[in-house]
């Protein structure tokens, strides 16, 4: 009843997922044997999201126009390189923040007795969209420069704030319900 391409696709997805599970198992075993009491800085670091006006400024063409007016190729080159690095750092920071938000959410959600399927699905879709956007932004900044992807960057920034807000609201609602049911 299922065709060869479907069977191969299903087999490949299943194989990759199971290999990932097996690899994670052996990594966990290694980690637990060499676990240190001191937490890693990267794991514990809380990254504050950039304010929206800062995002708009990084990707704004206005600074680029200002530098162009100086007619200094060296300055232009330096500005382009620096601005690209800042933009890439912002994408990296946003993607880290999004992953941290989702990690916090999944850690809290898996214990919750009152999880809504629709809300979870929306959060997962939002997360997938953001991760896809971060990937796209990374490629676009590398190839076209930050000033050409301003719209996409502002949209990604807004979405990441929406995700953070949604997670925060969900946390408050879930905790409120559990507090009421416990008392």
């Amino acid at each position, binding site marked *: 009843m299922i065709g060869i391409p479907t069977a191969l696709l299903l087999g490949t997805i299943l*194989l990759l997922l199971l290999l990932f*599970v097996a690899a994670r198992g052996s990594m966990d075993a290694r980690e637990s044997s060499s676990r240190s009491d001191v937490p890693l800085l990267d794991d514990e670091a809380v990254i504050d999201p950039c304010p929206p006006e800062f995002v708009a400024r990084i990707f704004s063409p206005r600074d680029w126009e200002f530098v162009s007016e100086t007619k200094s190729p060296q300055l232009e080159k330096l500005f382009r390189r620096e601005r690209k690095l800042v933009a890439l750092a912002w994408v990296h920071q946003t993607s880290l923040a999004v992953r941290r938000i989702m990690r916090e959410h999944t850690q809290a959600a898996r214990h919750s007795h009152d999880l809504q399927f629709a809300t979870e699905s929306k959060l997962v879709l939002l997360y997938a969209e953001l991760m896809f956007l971060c990937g796209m932004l990374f490629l676009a900044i590398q190839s076209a420069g930050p000033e050409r992807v301003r719209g996409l960057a502002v949209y990604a920034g807004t979405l990441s704030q929406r995700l953070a807000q949604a997670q925060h609201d969900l946390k408050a609602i879930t905790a409120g319900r559990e507090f009421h049911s416990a008392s």
Partner: protein
Amino acid sequence: MLSQLVSWSCIALESVLLFRGLRSKLGSRYPAFYTYISFVLFQDLLCYFAFRWAPHLLYTYIYWITEFLCILLSCGIVLEVYRVGLSAYPGTARITRKVLGLVFVVALAKALVSAANDPRWWLEATAKDVAGTLRAVQGVAIVALVSLFLFYAIPFGRNLRGILVGYGLFVCWTVICLTLSSSVNDNVHAVLKNLYQSSYPVFLIFWLVHLWSYQTNPASEVEVPLEREYERIAAATRRRLQDARGQLAKVVGS
């Protein structure tokens, strides 16, 4: 010669797996998995004797009837992974129930649509086709289950991981072999059949390594800060309410 060697090695490995399961009391922790292995052992012995002493047609009937019972019993393994793996995680368990329900509804709908488009399938489908389809549905269910386990970072114990990875790989291999075998020529079909039969001991060895002794499932190591925080607030509020009640009682009493 090769098939006899494979048959006897399977019987031996299944017996050792069951013996270790009883010895380490894993049988009571994973009843569906050990019921499945017991049934496979029974099937192997029955088919071996039927192949040697019964007519070929009877052997074919016995093989396919026990094979379908095996597939039905193996659904219990998927449910057992869900039950054991998510017992400490009610939130993920709730989402998993919905996702698995959705998977079965979609699979049923697809089967009905395909059957409606091609009514001859019900008449012409071989036992192999049906078995392949059932295993494919199981494969999709395992994909959904594993994705959720990974997404919610559910920790696995060595035993549960062995059952899940071993059984998942077995389903994956079975789906590919059964699908390919119905659309290749006789020579490739024979090679595929031998390959399929001789691969089963590999899965049994994998299970034996992971289920040699009992190892606890890692409990929820990280207590959720949110819940901890609210437990603290709830305790403080209860204490304040008690104090307030006490004060009120004093005021009313005086």
